[in-house]
Structures are given as C-alpha cells and as structure tokens.
C-alpha cells in the first residue's frame, strides 16, 4: 500500500503551491437542456401567437359538427377550429366554442356571420358537395373592422344569401303572403337572374311579410321608384270574367319561385304607398326616376297583372249598387268596366234582409279608380260631381255575363239615354249608384213580352183565311187542262214500264243461268285441281298454273256477279248504257 499519494503531502507542504486553475468550463452536457428549453419556449410563444380569441357560436343543432375536427373557414381558408360543443343552459340550443386565428381578432365584430356549410340540395342549386366527403365546416363572414367586438355569435343554419362584399343594393318589399318565396329565391329582371331574396320576416304587426332582396351590381340601377316588384313564382291560373288566364314564368322560377320586377314607363302617382314617411318630397316630380332610398318599401304584387294594375290603386271611390236579381257569378275582384275597359272592381257582395218589408237586397260595393279615366284629383267631391253629371246623361251600372262557360259576371257601366232619370243617392255609408236590370234579366222579360204578344194574336181569323186559300188552290187543281196533262204523263210512264219489264223477264234469267254454269264449272275445276294436286304433288309447276287459272276464273265469276247485281239494280243500263256516275 505504499503509493505516491502518501509521500506527496510533504512535497506539497514544502513546495510553493502550484497555481491550479480549474477550468471553469461550462459543462457541455448542459447545452442539451438549454436547447430543449429554447425549443420549448419557442413552441410556447408560437402557440400563444397562433391562438386567437375564443368565441362562442350558438346554433340550433350541432348536426355534423365535431369538436376538435370541424373548422371555421372564410373564403375556404381555415381561420379557426371548433374546440367544444355543449348545450346551452336551457338545453334549447347548442353552443360551439371555437378558437379563431389571431389575424381575425379585429374582424370578430357584432356583424360577423357564421353558418354551417353542409351539402344542400335545394331547388335550383346544389351547394357544398365537397362537404359530403370532407365533413361540414362552419363558414364565416367577417364583421366590419371597427365595430363593437363581440365574442358571442348566433349562427345561421343556412348560408346568408348575400355576402357583404358583393356589390349591389338591398331593397325592401312588403307582401301579403310569402307564397313560395324563401331566402335565396332568385330575383329576375327581364328573366335574367339579377339577385336573390336575402331575408324574410313577418311584419311586426303581423299584417304582412317583409322581404329583403339583394340586386347585384350592374342591375341595381334598374330599380327606381317607379319599379314594380311582383311574385313570379308558380303557375298563375286565373278564372275570372276575363276568361281563363294562365301565366307561366320560366320553368326554374315555376319550380322554386322568384321575384320579378319591371319599371313602368308612365305611371301615375307613386304606387309604392307603403309608409308615407319614406316617400321623399321630390317623389312627386313625374319624370325623374330618383334613386331608391334604403327606407323605401316596395309593394310585392301577386302577379304581373296586379303590378300593372297597381298604378291606379292609389285612389279609390266606393259606391254601392243594389241589384234585385241573381248575382251568382259576381265575385269579389270582378271588374267594373266601361265600354270594355276596367275602371274599378267589385269589393264586396253581400245579402241583406229588410226586416220590415221582408225583402232581400244585394248590396254590391264597388271601387272606382278615377285615375283610370284620367282624373287625378283625389277629392271625392270632384269625382262625385262628375259621376252625377254622367248619371244624368244615363250612365247606369248593370250586371253582365262576362264568360258563358265559367259563369263569371262583371259590372258594366253603360249609357242608357232613355232610362228613367235617377241620381246618385247619398246618405248611407257609401253613395248608391243607380243600376239597370241585367241583360239576362232583360232577355227573360222580353221573351215574356213576346209570349204575351203571341197569345194576343188573332189566331181564329188567320186560320179561316188559310182555309179559304186552300179552297182556291183546290179549284185550280180541279180544272180540265191539268187532268189531260196528267193523263199524258201516265201513258208515257206505262210505256216505259213495259220496256223495262221485258228486260226483267228475258235478260236477267239468262245471265243467272250463265252464272250458275260458271259456278258449277268452277267447282268441278276445283275438284279436278285437288285431284291433280294429290297426284302430282305440290311441287309441280302445273299445279301452280292450275291454281292461277282457278283464281283467274274466280275473278271472272266475281266480275260477272257484279255485273248481274248492277243489272238487277239498274235494268235500264242495258238500254241507256252504264251511267258515268251511277
């Protein structure tokens, strides 16, 4: 165990201590955790920078949404991921929590829109086919930069019909019924698709439907204050006094519905009467087509006709008509015409019982639109005065059959200058316009009148006259010259009979005999032929020839028979020859 270390202490003590400089090197091994720490820190920073805000989107259902898988995309770029999906507190809806990428932070404002993109097969379009394979995703439309930032959104079940960055303009329509329209229904102008329905909602008072449409860029200039919108969806079958009307739009809009519009060239006063507040003061200038303000609400008409007719709807005067006749066929909406031109329509048809007199009356309320005959003053007095003057000159209302097949009738305003004078009676809720019995009623009465006249005719005398005339005729016939003429005719007839009788007696039996013989020969020939066929076999050409002969013979017999028949019917043919046209 003697070793150098044991002797060393002495030397170490005596000798001056060497300067032992421990190399204070950084141990290399610690580079590894340092690198690891750097990488880790880098990952954390990256993760923090890539994590944008967390938002909550509320949907009606989480159909085809998968937490951790479903993405949020804008213009098909992934901008977020669905983290969790949970039910809302009252279980009525689904809350989708998603983390968004940080660059969208400033665009998650209150007007950002989210919807679920699924494969949709709607009439007219098929969208999102790619999602059948890849699964659905949440589409988004970023909000406007600078608006209030929001982290809670309510998602749409369908994609919005119009995206915010699409150039064009939004218009508001109001309709009584929605019809077959829906969000996304097309808007046509001259049958060109120019936009779509972007929103549909019930008016707050429930009296109508408010429809928002979006017309794309070059076409929204076509919409002016004079534009009429009408529902171009579906088939419009209209049976009225005008007959059967069948209105068909393009097949596409027939299937999926749509809105069409046109701009009237020369309209009367502004038809879009909806809220008067929205009509701007300059709207009365007739020829300018000012741009449409956002607050203007157009009326959506049921059909093109309705939209056309709408120009006169602005002002109406109501009158009552009392008909003492059957008003079957006179329905609400039936036209009121003057010389075949519509000037108004029937508003209501009722039946009232006068309890004192126990008499029924049919008050028919009509609306007359003075604008239709060029009177644009909107004062009842002016119109009343005018109508009073016309009634004095014999203007009367009457019910007329418009269409004999459908039985629809209408109200016609006609001048009867000889009619007993009447006036418009005021006093009730509506002025009462004088009426005439209808044409059919007139036919009944005139027929009755004719019958009465017929019954009053002097029939007895007439019959006596007739008898006298007949006697005179008898006398003429009884004269001598007539008798001799008739005798002559009789003799020539009997001679003629004789000639034809001879014919019958001699010629015909002979022909008959000839026929019998021919028939017999034919039968014999047939028998012979059959025998020959048996002997020689069918292949022999002789048989064929015989067959042909036989057929020829049959033809001959048939011709003779025809001749005989003809002679039997026209025996004179032997004398006069066969007529050209028997």
């Amino acid at each position, binding site marked *: 165990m003697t070793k150098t270390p044991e002797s060393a202490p002495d030397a170490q003590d005596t000798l001056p201590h060497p300067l032992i400089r421990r190399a204070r090197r950084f141990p290399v*091994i610690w580079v*590894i955790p340092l690198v690891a720490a750097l990488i880790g820190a880098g990952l954390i920073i990256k993760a923090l920078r890539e994590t944008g805000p967390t938002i909550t989107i509320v949907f009606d259902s989480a159909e085809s949404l998968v937490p951790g*898988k479903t993405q949020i995309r804008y213009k098909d770029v992934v901008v977020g991921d669905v983290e969790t999906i949970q039910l809302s507190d009252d279980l009525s809806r689904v809350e989708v929590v998603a983390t968004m990428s940080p660059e969208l932070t400033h665009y998650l404002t209150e007007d950002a829109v989210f919807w679920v993109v699924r494969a949709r097969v709607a009439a007219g379009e098929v969208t999102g086919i790619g999602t059948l394979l890849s699964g659905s995703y949440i589409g988004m439309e970023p909000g406007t930069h600078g608006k209030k930032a929001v982290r809670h959104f309510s998602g749409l079940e369908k994609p919005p019909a119009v995206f915010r960055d699409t150039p064009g303009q939004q218009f508001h329509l109001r309709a009584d019924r929605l019809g077959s329209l829906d969000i996304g229904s097309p808007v046509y102008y001259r049958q060109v698709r120019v936009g779509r329905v972007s929103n549909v909602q019930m008016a707050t008072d429930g009296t109508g439907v408010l429809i928002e449409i979006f017309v794309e860029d070059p076409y929204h200039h076509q919409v002016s204050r004079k534009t009429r919108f009408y529902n171009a969806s579906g088939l419009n079958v209209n049976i009225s006094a005008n007959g059967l009307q069948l209105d068909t739009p393009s097949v596409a809009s027939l299937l999926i519905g749509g809105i069409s519009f046109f701009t009237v060239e020369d309209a009367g006063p502004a038809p879009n009467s909806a809220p008067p507040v929205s009509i701007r003061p300059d709207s009365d200038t007739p020829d300018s087509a000012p741009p449409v303000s956002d607050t203007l609400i157009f009326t959506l008409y049921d059909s093109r006709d309705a939209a056309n007719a709408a120009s006169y709807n602005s002002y109406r005067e109501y009158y009552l008509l009392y008909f003492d006749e059957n008003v079957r066929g006179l329905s609400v909406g039936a036209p009121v015409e003057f010389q075949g031109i519509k000037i108004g329509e029937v508003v209501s048809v009722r039946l009232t019982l006068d309890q004192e007199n126990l008499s029924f009356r049919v008050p028919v309320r009509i609306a007359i639109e003075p604008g239709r005959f060029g009177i644009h003053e909107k004062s009842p007095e002016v119109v009343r005065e005018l109508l009073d003057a016309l009634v004095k000159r014999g203007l009367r209302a009457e019910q007329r059959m418009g269409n004999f097949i459908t039985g629809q009738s209408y109200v016609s305003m006609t001048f009867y200058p000889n009619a007993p004078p009447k006036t418009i009676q005021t006093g009730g809720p509506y002025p009462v316009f004088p009426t005439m019995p209808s044409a059919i009623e007139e036919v009944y009465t005139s027929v009755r009148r004719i019958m009465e006249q017929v019954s009053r005719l002097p029939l007895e005398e007439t019959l006596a006259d007739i008898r006298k005339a007949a006697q005179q005729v008898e006398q003429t016939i009884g004269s001598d010259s007539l008798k001799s003429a008739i005798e002559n005719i009789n003799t020539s007839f009997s001679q003629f009979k004789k000639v034809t009788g001879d014919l019958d007696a001699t010629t015909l039996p002979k022909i008959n005999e000839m026929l019998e013989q021919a028939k017999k020969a034919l039968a014999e020939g047939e028998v012979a032929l059959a025998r020959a066929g048996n002997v020689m076999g069918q292949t022999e050409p002789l048989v064929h020839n015989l067959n042909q002969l036989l057929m020829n013979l049959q033809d001959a017999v048939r011709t003779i028979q025809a001749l005989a028949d003809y002679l039997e019917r026209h025996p004179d043919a032997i004398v006069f020859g066969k007529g050209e046209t028997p």
Partner: protein
Amino acid sequence: MTLPPVSGTAAENGLCACHVCGFLAPVPARQDAPDRCPRCTALLHPRKPNSISRTWALVIAATIFYFPANLLPVTLTTYLGQTQADTIMSGVIFFIQTGSWGIALIIFVASIVVPISKLIALIGLLISIQRRSRWRPRERTRLFRIVESIGRWSMLDVFVVSILVALVRLGYLSTIEAGPGVIYFGAVVILTMIAAMTFDPRLIWDAVETTDDKNA
C-alpha cells in the same frame, strides 16, 4: 499479481473497475488526468464522471420535451380530404372509444406511463443521491435497473408512427403523416435512455458506505 486479502469495497482499497472491460485497476491520482485501463486502454474512473450533473441535464431536457411530445399531434391522418391531427392521448381515447382496450392499454403504458415513470424515477434517484439518502439502496438499485431495461420499449410509438406513415399512402383516399409530436417524443425517449446510461448506480451505495464509515 497476487491480490491481498480483500475487505470492503474496491474503492476502499484504492481500486476502480474499468467501465468497459471490468478490469480492476488502482484509482487514478488526479481527476483531470485520468489513467487508462492497462488492459483495454479505456479511461479509468472510480465513478462515471459528472454523473449527477449530466443525468440532471438530460433529465431536465427530456422533461421539457415531454410536454410538446404529448401536446403536439403525432399523426396527421388525412381521410378523404379531411385532415385529423391526433396526439398520443387522443389516440388512446380513440381506441378506448372504439373498444380496443388492449391496444389502448399498450399505447398508454408504452407511450405515457413508461416515459413519465422513467423521468420520475430518475429524478427521484438523483435527488436521493444528492441528499445522500440511505433509504432502501437495494430497491433503488432495482428501480434503476428497471428504468434502464424498459427505456427502449418507449420507442414503440415512434415505430408505429413510422410504419403507418410508410404504409398508408393512398393518395387522396387516405394518408398518414408524422406530426411534430413524434420528434419530441423520440427526443424524450432517447434523452431518458442516455440519462439512464450516464447515471451511475454505484452512487446510491456510496452514501451508504460513507455514512457507514462515519458511523463506524
């Protein structure tokens, strides 16, 4: 060379074993100028040099990498255009949900339990040595052996991913790509394996011996 009667450990007798060939040689005089093994010329150390410090460094690095390894996706499965990123744990959950309990258990044990228990075990051993703990040296040595032997099995996950990536190449239909998590996971496994190698289990016993000496 006749060996003297032996009592105590090699170190007490001024000897150390060569790490490579196990040759017993006298302990080198100075740490910074180590002798070489007379038989295989490998460097002679009484203990692995800087064992504690190196192991700590590797263990810390492995611990740092353990987080991205589990948080980042290990596979990116593209099926019919839809890409799905899976972490190790989400894979385990997927197998549990589809009822493959066996596979889920294997992946869970090999990829999650083993690495983390390795790290915990190594950290525990390191702390116990630095505190010169005398607590159950035999069990701690056995724990080290277990750590050392199971280390390689953690690479199972990495192998599975690499085989899948190579096999599933069906173009648009289905593709599997390795995610960034695999790299970190592989780093964890390798670093813990190296840490287990740099760790010197004899240090466990050193404390026991020295305190014995002091007590004696």
